[in-house]
């Protein structure tokens, strides 16, 4: 199995009373609450953690979130470029530049190709659909974002695989009449592609395309549903059954020397759920296009009708969760190496296997030293015991360009 270190470079140092008073900790919180000196240290620490991963054979994830305490990695391609140069061995997954809020996918493809070349073919390209508040901070229409997502992927893929001079693209959402990027990608036909989603329709399409389906903080039940949908879609399309190398599971995770240490330090990552997800209603339940209008029947009311259940977006149901609940729901793996191994394998069995374990190993007030200790213990004591990924037949292997 491949392990992937995922760090969002959060900024937890805003006074709690400011956060309590704010209606959203994303998109609207003034950046005067972010000290650039502290931010500089955080960048240095988080990038060093990625370099430690490189030494230990743990792959790294380069994420992107905008304008909030939940992440300082807004300018994701810059971070990707640093990782491409400074790491030497491991794979680098961009998960990912927010393609639904960027106006020109060709430019994104250019950035990806550059990172692939700098890293000499170690890039993997993951697509995410963006968070609700990011439609606002990214000035992107939230209505129709799924169709825009797929057209952006198609255009990026076409850009990365075209090598014979300019082509023209006049799609519904994007037009670019003269596409011919330099340098081209290092890996051929293109770097492996992923997407993070638990939405069944998207998982099915990932299956047909053979892209890796990552589930981030969705728990085993939702992940199994997505993976089953993926398998079904491939079967219905007459494609070979996927190996576990097409499936990725992401959880908050901390390995300590003992259960007590693992749980105590790992619980700090729950800050991500309990503090950093707070979004104003206009950037969540009232934002058009993100939930079907039918969900309004319950979501718009402040006093729900008896017997009704709010139809929340996945992240919202995690706010206020305890460490025990998070472990029970497969959102958090924390404890000694043996315990974490058992927790991961329990999830593995429940979902029918996965070839990639993405561990969110630092969040909230979990500090740099603690993060590095957790990474080392996971790399040395847990990762070697996890089952190898099974390959997907006829999946096009990436190879270096001549």
């Amino acid at each position, binding site marked *: 199995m491949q392990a992937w270190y995922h760090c969002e470079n959060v900024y937890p140092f805003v006074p709690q009373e400011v956060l309590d008073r704010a209606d959203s900790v994303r998109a609207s919180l003034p950046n005067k609450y972010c000290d650039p000196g502290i931010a500089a240290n955080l960048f240095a620490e988080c990038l060093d953690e990625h370099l430690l991963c490189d030494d230990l054979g743990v792959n790294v994830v380069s994420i992107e979130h905008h304008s909030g305490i939940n992440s300082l990695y807004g300018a994701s391609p810059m971070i990707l470029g640093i990782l491409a140069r400074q790491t030497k061995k491991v794979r680098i997954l961009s998960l990912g530049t927010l393609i639904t809020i960027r106006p020109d996918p060709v430019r994104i493809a250019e950035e990806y190709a550059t990172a692939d070349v700098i890293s000499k073919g170690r890039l993997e390209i993951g697509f995410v659909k963006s968070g609700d508040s990011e439609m*606002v901070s990214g000035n992107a229409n*939230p209505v*129709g974002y799924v169709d825009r997502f797929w057209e952006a992927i198609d255009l990026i893929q076409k850009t990365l695989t075209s090598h014979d001079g300019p082509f023209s693209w006049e799609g519904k959402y994007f037009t670019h009449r003269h596409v011919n990027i330099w340098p081209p990608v290092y890996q051929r036909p293109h770097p492996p592609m992923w997407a993070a989603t638990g939405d069944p329709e998207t998982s099915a399409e990932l299956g047909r395309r053979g892209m890796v389906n990552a589930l981030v903080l969705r728990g085993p039940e939702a992940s199994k549903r997505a993976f089953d949908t993926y398998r079904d879609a491939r079967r219905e399309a007459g494609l070979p059954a996927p190996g576990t190398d097409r499936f990725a599971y992401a959880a908050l995770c901390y390995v300590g020397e003992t259960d007590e240490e693992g749980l105590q330090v790992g619980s700090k990552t729950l800050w991500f759920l309990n503090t950093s997800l707070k979004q104003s*209603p206009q950037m969540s339940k009232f934002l*058009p296009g993100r939930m079907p*209008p*039918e969900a309004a029947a319950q979501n*718009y009311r402040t*006093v729900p009708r008896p017997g009704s259940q709010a139809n929340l977006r996945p992240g919202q149901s995690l706010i206020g969760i305890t460490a025990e609940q998070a472990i029970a729901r497969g959102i958090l793996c924390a404890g000694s190496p043996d315990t974490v191994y058992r927790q991961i394998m329990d999830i593995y069995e429940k979902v029918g296997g996965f070839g990639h374990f993405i561990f969110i190993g630092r969040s909230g007030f979990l500090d740099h030293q603690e993060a590095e200790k957790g990474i080392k213990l996971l790399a040395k004591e847990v990762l070697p015991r996890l089952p190898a990924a099974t390959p997907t037949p006829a999946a096009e292997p990436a190879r270096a360009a001549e």
Partner: protein
Amino acid sequence: MALGNGNGERLTVRGIELEAVRRGAGRPILLLHGFQTVNPTTPFLELLAHHGEVVAPSGPGFGHSPRPKDFDTVYDLVHLYLELLDTLPDDKVTLLGFSFGGWLAAEVAVACSHRLDKLVLVDPLGIKVSDRETPDILDIFNKSPDEVRRKSWHDPDRFAPDFNQMSDEALVTYARNREALCLYAWHPYMYNPQLPRWLGRIKVPTLLLWGESDGVVTPDYGRAYSRLIPGSQFELIDCAGHHPEIEQPEIFIERVAGFLKQ
């Protein structure tokens, strides 16, 4: 397209099916709704029906009107309503637009003045008048629901929708209207940068009615709008926000009726 008889609850325009509210008889009054579709039981509708045959279609994606694939721009909406005008049997039609529908009505009037006898714009959107760092139109998607509520109504406690009291069906329609509006008008937000240049083409008598307390688009925005339409009248309605037809239906109708008689 035929308006048909009786209540005429569906219209078909160039193969596009529209839900429509119809009331009254006489001079044709085409009513283009604002952020929300016209509630068939709203008091101003009956009052307006004393002055003509009111037809109020719900735009594609709004209310119960389906939205055809790739029908997703203000350009589509404007041409849909131009087509609707073309197919009306009457020589001249009175065009009335609220808010977002006021924008559409202004666009239609720019393109097709000769088919109109009167134009009434009620707190219309559609133009930009201030500098690049001063938004003219309240961002009803990005601003807090409390602020939007406060700025939309003179008396929000009495008139703003209460989601806890609304039926499931009404809430779904409300959300569907917001989704359609967002699709059409997210960017540029609720205006056409080119429109001010062409408003001078409007050659019919035009009345701009404005809620004095409107905080979505202020009366000053309305005055600027009016200056761009040659010969237009601008009138305020007291004790009303962005929806004077709902907060002050009698006064609203009095003003409209007076203008139609001129």
